[in-house]
């Protein structure tokens, strides 16, 4: 009932049809995307650590998180003896995960965002419910801005996909920026020279 009424009302009231504007190419003059990505990520309270490749992931994790109990990974090769996300049946069981290590598809230099798809997350809740999030990103996989980002992805190739830029935060109490609202309390990006 509502459907027909709404569509009829829109049909009656809408203005004459216009056409969509052409979208120009927005090229960023800065060629050093890596430097920009690092700088912006740190500006939004993220931590960026350069690593040579997969072999250095566990060392970086040990240094950054000395006393964590539970580490969960999307790929078993990321960390020895870590729990594999695929072995959790229910996302509620992830409530005790201290550190989750996931792979990002690519980063966006202008805002520090990283694109992750459902397949990268294993459980959609993983990057939110864990206390600390680590994203492994190949340093060659960077784009300049959001226009290029959307050219690269098919937003519906997975049932869910997300850009993550920094740790969870809020400024709802007197505009004081507090890191760690409901999602991860910290974000560490492991920028890898080799593909992991």
């Amino acid at each position, binding site marked *: 009932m509502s459907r027909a009424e709404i569509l009829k009302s829109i049909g009656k009231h809408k203005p004459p049809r216009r056409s969509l504007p052409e979208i120009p190419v927005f090229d960023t003059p800065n060629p050093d995307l890596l430097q920009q990505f690092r700088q912006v990520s740190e500006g939004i309270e993220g931590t960026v650590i350069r690593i040579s490749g997969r072999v250095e992931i566990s060392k970086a994790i040990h240094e950054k998180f000395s006393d964590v109990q539970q580490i969960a990974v999307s790929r078993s090769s990321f960390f020895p003896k870590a729990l594999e996300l695929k072995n959790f049946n229910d996302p509620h069981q992830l409530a005790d995960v201290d550190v989750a290590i996931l792979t990002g598809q690519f980063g966006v230099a202008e805002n520090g965002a990283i694109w992750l798809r459902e397949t990268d997350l294993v459980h959609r809740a993983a990057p939110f419910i864990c206390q600390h999030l680590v994203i492994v990103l190949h340093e060659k996989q960077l784009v300049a801005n959001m226009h290029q980002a959307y050219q690269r992805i098919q937003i519906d190739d997975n049932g869910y996909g997300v850009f993550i830029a920094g740790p*969870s935060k809020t400024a709802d109490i007197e505009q004081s920026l507090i890191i760690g609202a409901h999602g991860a309390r910290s974000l560490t990006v492991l920028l890898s020279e080799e593909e992991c």
Partner: protein
Amino acid sequence: MNHSQSSEKFLRDKQRTGWHDASLWFVREKRDAVAKAVPEWETLRTLASEIKQQVLSDLDQYLISFEKNAQKNGVHVHWARDGKTHNEIVFNILQKHHARSLVKSKSMLTEECGLNEFLLANDIEVIDTDLGERIVQLAEEPPSHIVMPAIHKKKAEIGELFHQTIGTEKGNSDPAYLTEAARQHLREKFLRAEAALTGVNFAIAETGGVVVCTNEGNADMGVHLAPLQIHSMGIEKILPRAEHLGIFLRLLARSATGQLLTTYTSHYHRPKPGGEMHIIIVDNGRSEQLGQEKFRQSLCCIRCGACMNTCPVYRRSGGHSYGSVIPGPIGSILTPGMPIGGHPDLPFASTLCGSCNDVCPVKIDIHQQLYHWRQHSEIRQAAAPGKKRLMQFAAWLFSHPQAYRLAGKTARLFLRMLPRKAIYHRWNHWGLSRELPVAPRESFREWYDKNEGKK
């Protein structure tokens, strides 16, 4: 109470008014800094405005293809012509799943529909999960800003509120401590919620999915943990294609809080394995507004809140003074045309300085619309009676030159001779915070006649 009466109440606490004004101006300055750093900013605004207007010109077709694509993705699509229908749809979905608890992430639309009150009356536990929204929910107040719902509250008040409602230590109002307490309190709610509901920032016609932006991660905590997810959207949230997100996302967070992007930009297309996903498309007066040529552009709004942060009236009167779900400049042009309206005084809650137009990322002609609303017959009735009489008198005076000259002479004389008290008293609102210049002895006309006219 109308806007000017409520603002007067707000203004009585001078210190708070100054603090409120400064907090919002701080956000405005952050916005300016990041906007200026994007060389193509103005091009982006123009494109965003053109895209939104094109969407409005073909809105029914876009909604039909959005629905078709969403259904292909296994999403249940519902349509609600008004707020009541929307609430009933939500309630029916919850009942079908025997869900008795709902976690909500920020949605001005559900505020507009009065969803919380409706569900609570039907024995459903509703928890707002955005920190600011949770604060105002616990305080039993409406949000006072669309992006920063508790911007009117001081931390000491929040500390006391949390002490009484969620058991934090008495006297502790450290924002980090209070945020941590809210995190623990809400985490427990997320873990046992049976359903989650979010608003929608953008709905993509070509893919049938919705995009939600948050900094806290509350939308995702809710949606991914509860088996049932519901997204409520106004009909105007449509964008034709995914590539358009690039433009709107670059504008939204920069305009809203001076961030480059919100922490999380989530794209929901299909239900999670074993879950169910619903989208409710709500009209509630929007399609009528679409028919009003002078006012339809207000439907392009992406709810960034920039027009509030910049507005000299909003900053000094507070969001609650508007008495409408959406306050500030955009609220003052949306509300009079909506079925929930009933705020004909709002178009007068503006200085028409035009600052809102300058910051609006989709270039809505807000102050022109405010002006047009003032010309509307029903709205005109709402002007304060004193002001109306004064205007009628002014119209008469300006059309009778002799009377005008006499009045000028008399006024100049009296302004020089009367004691201060006669002008600066409590019935003359104008004089409460202003000083008159010293009245000259002769008018321009007298001077002209003497010096030039006689030549």
